[in-house]
């Protein structure tokens, strides 16, 4: 009986999804289709925001408030994980970290700065090339994951992580509020736009993306540190 009911519900779900998604031309060239907001962003995004990457102009400018929400969600999730895994320091028996193999240690020392620079490049160039704060931040966090795997005796200072995270969040909100003061809207651009396709262009977008990159990187490094340091 339960199998029958679940089969019927599944069929209804599949049919509903199929009918709902049947009209959307997945993978087709949608520039000239009837999806008007997308066309507006493609035609006017570069002129209005000065960012060569249209996705960035949407994520940070037109839908910047949503991005603030996303960053907040990540922040709350990291806090929740820290709360679930919280144990008092004194209860923990001192576990001596097992040292990694020579290959992993050497590879970690060699790759860590390169991955860090690559992540920074991704979020600094977010307004010019594909990528942005989130992607760059995750790459930075994976560099720190490599440190935890390869050089376990090195501790990443948690206080510094929290400070970086808070500072980056403050920069994001402050820039948004300055836009409210000078431009009349939250996250409105108030700096000169500059020439499209140069590093110092697009007004506040690079500042916000660098803040997001630091924030996401610090948060996810904190998540990895929480998981790896607290052994039961």
């Amino acid at each position, binding site marked *: 009986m339960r199998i029958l009911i679940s089969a019927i519900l599944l069929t209804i779900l599949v049919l509903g999804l199929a009918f709902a998604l049947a009209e959307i031309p997945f*993978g087709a060239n949608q520039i000239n289709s009837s999806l008007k907001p997308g066309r507006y962003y493609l035609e006017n995004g570069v002129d209005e925001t000065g960012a060569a990457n249209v996705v960035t102009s949407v994520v940070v400018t037109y839908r910047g408030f949503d991005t603030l929400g996303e960053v907040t969600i990540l922040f709350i999730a990291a806090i929740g994980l820290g709360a679930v895994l919280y144990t008092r320091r004194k209860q923990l028996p001192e576990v001596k970290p097992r040292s990694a193999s020579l290959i992993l240690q050497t590879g970690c020392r060699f790759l860590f700065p390169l991955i860090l620079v690559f992540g920074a490049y*991704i979020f600094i160039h977010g307004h010019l090339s*594909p990528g942005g704060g*989130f992607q760059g931040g*995750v790459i930075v*966090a*994976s560099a720190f994951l490599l440190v935890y795997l390869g050089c376990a005796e090195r501790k990443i200072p948690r206080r510094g992580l929290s400070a970086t995270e808070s500072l980056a969040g403050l920069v994001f909100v402050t820039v948004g509020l300055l836009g409210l003061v000078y431009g009349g809207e939250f996250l409105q651009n108030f700096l000169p736009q500059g020439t499209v396709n140069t590093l110092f262009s697009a007004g506040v977008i690079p500042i916000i993306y660098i803040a997001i990159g630091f924030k996401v990187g610090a948060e996810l490094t904190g*998540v990895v540190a929480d*998981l*790896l340091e607290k052994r039961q």
Partner: protein
Amino acid sequence: MEDALKQIAEAILVILMLGGAVCACIFKDLLNAVIAAAFVSLIATILFYFLQAPDVAMAEASIGAALTTAIFVIAIRKTKRFEE
């Protein structure tokens, strides 16, 4: 001709992705299941790139294929490896 080749490649990738997803569901060894899930993310990355969404592809590659897998592996190491 080129379009047809691209469509065939996409179809193969989608079938591989479905296979990976089914494997991730049925494997009893959770480590294998996590690797299968990472494989699904990897194929999704390639498909996003084919669909001209490099930003999403980068997010999927860094979050889905790298960091999530690492976090799952750490979680498995701290709990149990095999599903009952």
